[in-house]
């Protein structure tokens, strides 16, 4: 069976309802394990003290903030090319989740930065690109709400998503692009595998990253289901109005 068969809202909902219990359960287990392990059972860092425990929230949230936008980029492209409504609705459903992840990354970063850098905020390339990404999320959500026709809203938000992807890339690679600013480079480089985090911190961090990823997937599936139902309600009401 082709993946495009899930562009059918009924098939998508049926699959989503089957998958969600596993995703919610796995997310809960991973998040509870990772966060409890990280908070209660990891030692302080010799330089950062106990603030190192903020890493278990900050890094997974920042990771998901960027990945959420890439997921929205892919679904927006599918909408623009193939006009599948489910993909546009999935992008719409993911935006508030990405927004909250970005906000968590910004808040936890500021709380960590105050004692470590001596400032809540610095116009550093990575911090600034993350703030711009946050504003893009807000703008994207506002645009969906501002346009009455759902197809036009999906078209315009998809274009905004393409533009915002530049900042999502900048957020990810800002440290490499501009070798300046306060924010350190990535501690877990996926391409080289040369991570600078000790196993004692890395294992619970990895579990938290998986947990945030699963939570994102569960939330997006649930919220996409809601958007599909709201679209069906609009269609039914429009049909009834026409027959009156």
């Amino acid at each position: 069976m082709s993946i495009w068969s899930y562009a059918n809202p009924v098939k998508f909902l049926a699959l989503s309802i089957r998958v969600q219990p596993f995703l919610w359960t796995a997310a809960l287990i991973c998040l509870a394990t990772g966060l409890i392990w990280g908070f209660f059972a990891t030692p302080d860092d010799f330089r950062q003290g106990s603030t190192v425990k903020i890493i278990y929230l900050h890094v997974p949230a920042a990771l998901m903030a960027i990945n959420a936008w890439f997921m929205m980029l892919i679904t927006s492209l599918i909408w623009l090319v193939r006009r599948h409504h489910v993909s546009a609705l999935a992008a719409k459903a993911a935006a508030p989740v990405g927004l909250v992840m970005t906000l968590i990354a910004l808040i936890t970063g500021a709380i960590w930065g105050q004692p470590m850098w001596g400032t809540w905020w610095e116009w550093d390339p990575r911090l600034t690109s993350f703030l711009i990404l946050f504003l893009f999320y807000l703008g994207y959500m506002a645009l969906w709400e501002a346009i009455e026709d759902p197809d036009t809203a999906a078209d315009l938000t998809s274009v905004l998503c393409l533009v915002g992807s530049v900042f999502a890339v900048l957020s990810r690679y800002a440290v490499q692009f501009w070798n300046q600013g306060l924010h350190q480079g990535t501690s877990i480089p996926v391409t080289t595998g040369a991570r600078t985090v000790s196993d004692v911190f890395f294992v619970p961090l990895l579990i938290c990253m998986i947990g945030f990823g699963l939570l994102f997937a569960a939330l997006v599936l649930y919220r996409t289901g809601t958007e599909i139902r709201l679209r069906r309600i609009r269609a039914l009401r429009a049909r009834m109005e026409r027959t009156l």
Partner: protein
Amino acid sequence: MPDLGKYAVEVVSAYGASLLLLALLLGLSLRRGQRARAELAKAEAEAADHG
């Protein structure tokens, strides 16, 4: 509760703010989802009545 030393306020507030935001996101998503299900059931019943 582990001994968080002089950074206890920072660590606890970071966890508190993050968990609060996640709880809000979850709560609002679930409430919106439940409302949509109820509204859809009502709209489908109305549509069936209309024939």
